């Protein structure tokens, strides 16, 4: 249903992608028509849709004429890059977020809790592209510690040793992942804290305290496990937001991932790529929710798949 919606939306947009690609004096209408035919764009909309669905089911996703490659290839290249970025950011922000949330909940209302809370709220209030721009400026432009974008050094990478190559890849990952992580971590930390706060007065918590555990140990051992559950579910739901947030990051850091490709494709009316991109995101969401459910089952002793 999602894909139908997108397909209709994108195709309704005014603007002829072929005309845009062939904007030069002297290009005749006949030439443009020939291009349209070779990409199948002159058939009625309904026919195009049916053909697209049939092909998609077979794994054949069409040809992206803004990238001049089959869509499958474009997705195969860009999707892993976005997932690398997003996956790393998700894991790191999760770890960081839970950690900070726990630190806060140990002594609610205490100085550490309040100050961490303010910092997190500040981070949470910052526009992501702004943070990315500032990071790029400071760490790549003014103080050239990290490279200005891309995945690897365009020239030297293949001529470096194995260690050099790893270092190269890592140095290109730092800024984008860091920016994505900070913002997500802020949200997750806030959420983890409130989840923990909810759990604190509960029965088994009092039981744990009665058993003689110190407050801090009790929080850490039992509360975290229970409060982890909704956070894990959240992490699963976070995936589409991550993909969208990645758009800004990818744009600022020239990271050739799927978010950037899809946004550019919408502007270029590259219908096959847009619909395939949205399909990919939808699949990711479902997968994310599934993974979250599985993770919950693992972590929660009360819930076991029979």
């Amino acid at each position, binding site marked *: 249903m999602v894909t139908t919606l997108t397909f209709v939306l994108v195709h309704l947009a005014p603007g*002829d992608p072929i005309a845009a690609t062939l904007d030069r004096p002297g290009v005749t209408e006949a030439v443009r028509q020939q291009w349209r035919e*070779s990409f199948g764009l002159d058939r009625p909309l309904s026919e195009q849709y049916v053909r697209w669905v049939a092909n998609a089911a077979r794994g054949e996703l069409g040809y992206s004429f803004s990238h001049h490659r089959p869509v499958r290839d474009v997705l195969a*290249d860009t999707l892993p890059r976005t997932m690398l970025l997003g996956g790393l950011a998700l894991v790191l922000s999760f770890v960081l977020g839970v950690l900070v949330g726990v630190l806060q909940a140990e002594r609610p209302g205490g100085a550490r809790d309040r100050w961490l809370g303010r910092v997190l709220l500040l981070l949470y209030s910052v526009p992501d592209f702004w943070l990315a721009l500032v990071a790029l400026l400071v760490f790549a432009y003014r103080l*050239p*510690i990290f490279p200005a*974008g891309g995945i690897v050094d365009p020239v030297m990478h*293949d001529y470096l040793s194995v260690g050099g190559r790893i270092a190269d890849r890592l140095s290109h990952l730092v800024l984008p992942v860091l920016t994505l992580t900070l913002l997500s971590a802020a949200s997750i930390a806030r959420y983890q804290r409130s989840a923990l706060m909810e759990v604190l007065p509960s029965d088994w918590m009092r039981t744990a305290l009665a058993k003689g555990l110190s407050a801090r140990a009790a929080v850490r051992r039992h509360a975290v496990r229970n409060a982890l559950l909704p956070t894990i579910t959240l992490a699963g739901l976070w995936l589409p937001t991550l993909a969208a947030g990645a758009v800004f990051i990818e744009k600022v850091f020239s990271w050739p991932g799927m978010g950037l490709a899809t946004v550019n494709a919408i502007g270029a009316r590259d219908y096959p790529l847009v619909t395939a991109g949205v399909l990919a995101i939808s699949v990711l969401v479902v997968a994310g929710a599934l993974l979250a459910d599985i993770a919950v089952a693992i972590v929660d002793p009360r819930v076991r798949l029979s």
Partner: protein
Amino acid sequence: MNQPTRPPRARLCWAPIVLAALVAAGCKGAEPNASATGEMGGTMVVAMPGDVGTLLPGLVVSMGDRELTDLLYDRLAEIGDDMNTLGDKGFTPRLAERWDWAPDSMSITFHLNPKARWHDGQPVRASDVRYSLNLIKDPAFGSPVAVYVTNVDSVSVRDSLTAVAWFKRHTPEEFYDLVYQVVIVPEHILGNTPAAQLKTADVGRRGIGSGRFRLARWEPGQRLEIVSDTGNYRGRAKLDRVVFVPSADFNAAVTRFFSGEADLFDQLRPENMAKLAGDTVRHALRYPNLQYATYAFNLVDPKQPSRPHPIFGERAVRRALTMAIDRVAMARNAFDTLGLPLHGPFPSSIAVADTTLPQIPYDTTAARALLDSAGWLAGPDGVRVKNGRRLAFGLMSPSSSASRHQYAVLLQAALRKVGADVRLEETDFATFVAKQNTHAFDTEISLFATDPSVSGFKQTWSTAGISKDGSNFTAYSSPVVDALLDSATTTFDPARTRAYARRAFETIIEDAPAVWLYQPPTVAGIARRIRTTNLRADEYWADMADWWIPADQRIARDRIGLQPLP
């Protein structure tokens, strides 16, 4: 063992690891390598905003792609620096080492250089020339330059090194039409695939040409690397390799350039100039171009193209609005001191340019008076009204162009001062082009990139160009101009061509179908260590194969040498 020179801005954090790696790489390249002496050698990294589209010359539409295909392939001959397109004056041999004109000039015999080879080793034959022309003319292939070679009838093969080109009529630009537009491609590589499939087929991405550079590898979205063709018939390119790195946008490309990752970025803006002021590693390189930008009025009604536009159909209104625009101040605002004024519908580097033509002056008082006398009187909110219609209209520009966006905002304010309410309509490029072609706009800022010939003007300013095949977006139609342009393109006397063109331009300027805004300044940022040659007006990269780096100024990546990938 040579210690590689560190790039001026060292990467602090990863320095130890990367340095070790560089040392290792440097050690590999320090073996006596014939290509590393003298002027040969070096690596240049080019930052491109956007990515590579196609490597097939006949299908190229963007300047970036054009640069690449020009480096990988050859033409029969190259145009001279004076951009002359009449006859063959100034053209220098490439794949054709010489040529003979038939006495009636209806055919030209080209003798190919026997040493010319394709990058896969096969010799370049006359049949390749024939194939290249037929491919471009083939409607199934869909080449955007097909319309430029309509006068070339065919190419026949006399023997493997002799090709004869036949023309339908004897025109002043027939040599230019064939030689400039038809880049020679290998039949034995491409010929086995039906023309209609070449757009998407894999074989069209191999970039096998006869140029002094050949394609080493292409990773879409990441880099495209070309290396020197060591066995080339004109000698190898002096640089070992050129790496093109696509960037998500302008900002990213500029950052790459200033951080040292890239050596060349050819679209610097005025605000970057200050940064280059004290820079010891890189500097600005101004290069000519054949572009010009206009603020164009739509002379027909967008809803009913058979009727004149309710506002801009009147010449007086157009002239009045033109007088409200301070082109000099706007150019100063947008381009600082780099801006070049525009004197008419032509770039100043073209052969028939004339910068002395009379212009409509900037005079807001006269503008208001003219609008008053045309019946457009100021309403209560300052916006003029005539017959119940407000002087309110749209201004269309593509969101992809920052300078056009800048001008759009400036124009909006300037026109407001004389009582016009302008609504900015920034659209994506695809929609912009579609609306241009169908005359579905009120006003727009259009940027033209012309080719050196005179006949291009007919596309933009003659009545025939109003159809979807041409580029006459303003729908300007003047029988006088039509006749003058026809004469300009059929006379064989360069002086008469210039005279006819001048009179045509004068008439167009008088009729004010557009405001001649600016010639975009094209400034490249380039590393100082790279020595360039003469920069041609239509393509600054034309002689890139002769650019070189002095041995004593080379940095780490220059020393990689021509070794194959590890």
